[in-house]
């Protein structure tokens, strides 16, 4: 078995910001009662960060935990650890009503770097992308043009976007358009 192949083979575009498709990333959907100890332990054990609060994205390198909804987390870990991670989480949750599923291959991720990350996103998403509306470290699930996506800012100049794998090319093309040279808005 060779290496996993992501949707666009690591595509990249330089415009108002630099867009790059990120390499495969372990992503585990964890559904359960987020206040239950077993659920917390399962998440933090693999994600390597504390439990996030509502809408928080807690990440460090390729690990982390994203708050997706009141009963759902996305746990991030290195791609090749995912099978083991799922097993370990399932073991912890043996007696708890919870669901752990590997969704690493069902997603595509992009990184946006540069001064204009907020506005490149704000051309596509109806979310409030001002610093007040989306502080660094807050996860926003919304849409990018016509598809759902989740994104958060690691810093004022670096954003990460997760979407479904099948629309990776669409999303990448959207970014190519919203980051096209000469289209800076200059509001944030």
């Amino acid at each position, binding site marked *: 078995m060779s290496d996993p192949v992501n949707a666009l083979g690591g595509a990249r575009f330089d415009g108002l910001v630099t867009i790059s498709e990120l390499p*495969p990333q372990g992503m585990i959907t964890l559904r359960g009662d987020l206040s239950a100890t077993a659920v917390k332990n399962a998440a933090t054990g693999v994600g390597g960060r504390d439990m996030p609060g509502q809408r928080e994205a807690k990440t460090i390198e390729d690990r982390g935990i994203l708050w997706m909804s009141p009963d759902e987390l996305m746990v991030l870990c290195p791609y090749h650890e995912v099978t083991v991670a799922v097993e370990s989480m399932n073991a912890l949750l043996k007696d708890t009503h919870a669901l752990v599923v590997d969704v*690493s*291959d069902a997603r595509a991720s992009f990184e946006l770097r540069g001064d204009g990350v907020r506005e490149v996103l704000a051309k596509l998403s109806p979310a409030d992308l001002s610093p007040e509306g989306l502080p660094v470290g807050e996860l926003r699930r919304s849409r990018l*043009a016509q598809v759902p996506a989740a994104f958060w800012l690691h810093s004022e100049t670096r954003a990460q976007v997760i979407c479904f*794998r*099948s629309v990776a090319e669409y999303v990448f093309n959207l970014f190519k358009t919203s980051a096209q040279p*000469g289209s800076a808005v200059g509001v944030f």
Partner: protein
Amino acid sequence: MSTRLATGGRLIDRSKQQSFTFNGKRLTGCAGDTLASALLANDQMLMGRSFKYHRPRGVVASGAEEPNALVGLGTGARFEPNQRATTTELFDGLSATSQNHWPSLEFDVGAVNTKLARFLPAGFYYKTFMWPRSFWKHVYEPVIRQSAGLGKAPDAETRDADTYEHFYAYVDHLVIGGGIAGLETAKRLGETGARVLLVEQTAHWGGRAPVDGGEVEGQPVTEYIAGLLAALNAMENVTLRSRTMGAGIYDHGYALAYERLSDHAPTTQGPRHRLWRIRAGQIVTATGAIERPLSFAGNDIPGVMLASAVRDYVENWAISPGDRTVIVTNNDDAYRTALVLKSHGLDVPAIIDARVLPTDSALMAEARAKGIAIHQGHAIDHVMGTKRVRGVAICSHAGEGGAVIEEIPCECVAMSGGWSPVVHLWSHCGGKLNWDQANAMFRPDLTRAPTGDKGQAFVTPAGAANGAMTLGDVLEDAVAAAERASGDTRTSDAPKAVVAVEAPLAPVWMMPQGASIKHRMKAWLDYQNDVKVSDVQLAAREGFESVEHAKRYTTLGMATDQGKLSNINGLAILSGALGAEIPQVGTTTFRPPYTPISMGAIAGEARAEIFQPIRKTPIHDWLDKNGAEWEPVGHWRRPYCIKQAGETTEQAVHREVKNTRENLGLLDASTLGKLIVKGKDAGKFLDMLYTNMMSTLKPGRCRYGLMCNENGFLMDDGVVARIDEDTFLCHTTSGGADHIHAHMEDWLQCEWWDWDVYVANVTEQYGQIAVVGPNARKVLEAIGGMDVSKEALTFMGWADGELAGIPVRVYRISFSGELSYEIAVKASYARELWDLLMSVGKQFNVMPYGTEALHIMRAEKGFIMIGDETDGTVIPQDLNLHWAISKKKEDFMGKRAHERADMAREDRWKLVGLETVDGSVLPDGAYAVGEGTNANGQRNVIGRVTSTYHSPTLGRGIAMGLVLHGPDRMGEVIRFAKTDGTTMIDAKIVDPVFYDKDGEMQNV
């Protein structure tokens, strides 16, 4: 003639000459010109033709309200019809053409309509053109269409060369209009620290004030404005955008703004327009006021302009509209125009003022002091000239016209009928208006503002838009608006302004007051649509009393300027004709956009490739490179077939079917929905969702299931696999994945939230490859890694394992009737597995197949297809799927619905197989014809085709259909009609399973 003055011009840069063409003629203007000012500088008064009568028309206004000076702008892929010359900034190389005439602007055959005007009053077409009947379609309508319309249609094959984009913005305050009111309000709001966005439709800040003059806080108003701008620019929390029009206000604080990024500089990189979609806490409409024309005979002749526009042209662009300008007015403001003209050395032979004032007001006195003759109590009887003004004939305003006192030669008439606040944006979302009798205008009723999601008022007008007309009042209102919007009443006092005190205006709706019918037929209200005073009066006379009826009957206010100049005058005429008060008659509805916005901007980025998302499977690229003929399935692309060199589509499909039945076929089935359902109540939940029993399924096994909606109709089907005691994996149709996922979440969240069930959509986690055909097992064995023998992996079983080291889950299910394995593999490895199957499969004659082969094979087996056999009106019983409807379950979705009279009916059409007698293929969707006709004279029908194919396996047409008492009529021949309704095709009712009735092939 109109020309450029030697000096002056606030907005132009004489050092930058720009060349442009108008109707092919090369002309020059200056940077800072609008197309209108540049044309006037070149003595091009005549700019277009009106809609109905093709009257010669010149520019009447200087801004967004312009109804006449519309041009076709640009060429080819950048051609745009109906662009207003007054809001088109000049650039080097601009090319414009005038509209609505043939053969030329100067000599227009259509102008004969002007001669016929008397026969073409409002609504004449409702009364004529009725006979002979066929003439409407073949004669009258084509002629009407040809002479109507305005600008040229872009060429049929035009592809817009520019791009567009959207931008979503959230602000506490959106201020629309960058006149002095908007600037002052924005500054006050900015000082609170709130997020403020200020938009101005033109390229310049300050609105009317720099032209109208005055002093604020001891400074000339222009300096005061510069100070405001500097302060605003310095505020981090304030964003200013010029060339950005507030286009519409919608519910819950939503607003659209239309930014024109490169219309003034078409060679700039980047999008042409940006549509801002703003969510604002509060919106301030500081949109100013628009001057009203006066209704006198000949008020549409080129050279008749609004007084404020004349002033603008002189001050902003150093245009002399003519050496001699007659002013006609009912208010003091127009005197400013006289003074401005005078100060530039131009002649004002007379000011005709409909009012009779006991004493001179300040502006009047000033005018008199400059030696201008003022004719009080007078009116224009008519304007002389055809393609441009030659002079005016004046009469007493109180009269009925015709008694001309004096004729005054002039080239320009500057008219002012008072001002109407721009209340459009205030009104878009329900803001109400009051009639202000003293100023003869509608102004916002602050107690009836548009309300937002909390029931709060969220729009506030400011300045002239709120009916404040003098500089001092405007500034005071701007401060008050900031207080209203922020709720903060502790702001400092309004800046003090010094302006001339004006005498009150006198409403004048018709000039002279008792104008005769001949005059009224020449007094224009709506210039573009050629609606005259007489038309509105005719409408009233004929019973079109509601202002909405009058609008629709006369087309008043329906032109591209949306009645910015005409509406108030029109409804005043209407109320006069009805003997009603103006407020009782009311206004028509203000609708977005404020001025027209491009379709491109509305569509935004969604064009071509990214018009809609295309979903791609991990195997998509391989298929694309290897001859896939794509078919859209939802947002997915699926290969209809995979063509080899030289093949037709049909040949490819038949080859694929044959090869799959004889050797080995591969199908990319990745688009199939895959939903994980887990929890101790998962079985119970699926029992509710599926018509059959799922809770009894054993781990390791699969079961085909049907889903109905609550209304009883089939909505999806698929194979459910039980993974373990608590976990199921439900396959859905390709189109159904998201929908069924949402359906499950709906019931779990909203009805059975106490059940322990979680659902996850893992559709895209896996590529799914169907390995199908007699050689299916062989290829898997050749690849090696797991036991796929008949014994180890029985029909309708599944197993986890590895193939050549790639982890897979293999389901032994078949939709083709052949030996078949569906292999789920992580999407990141799907391509690798596919490649492996293709290469190892070579020795077994592997070939990929597409959706059409899939459909044919399932039809040969008599399997139903959601969307073919079902259409939202079909219940499982219709398809003889009783075996899949549990009798044991007390309840499941659709069960109650099936008990209703119509669904329990004996004579519902039922599924059967159909074989044409001659072996041909039945047409898709054909109906079987019964005896006679129904009460409405329609042929009675007794069935219809649901799917139909040529079966390469059987070498004949096969079909399925729903037929009245079908299953009881095996062997009977029924007749299907072709689309001519008469040609019949005979088909025999047969069992729907055409191929391998005993299922031997799939059970090997």
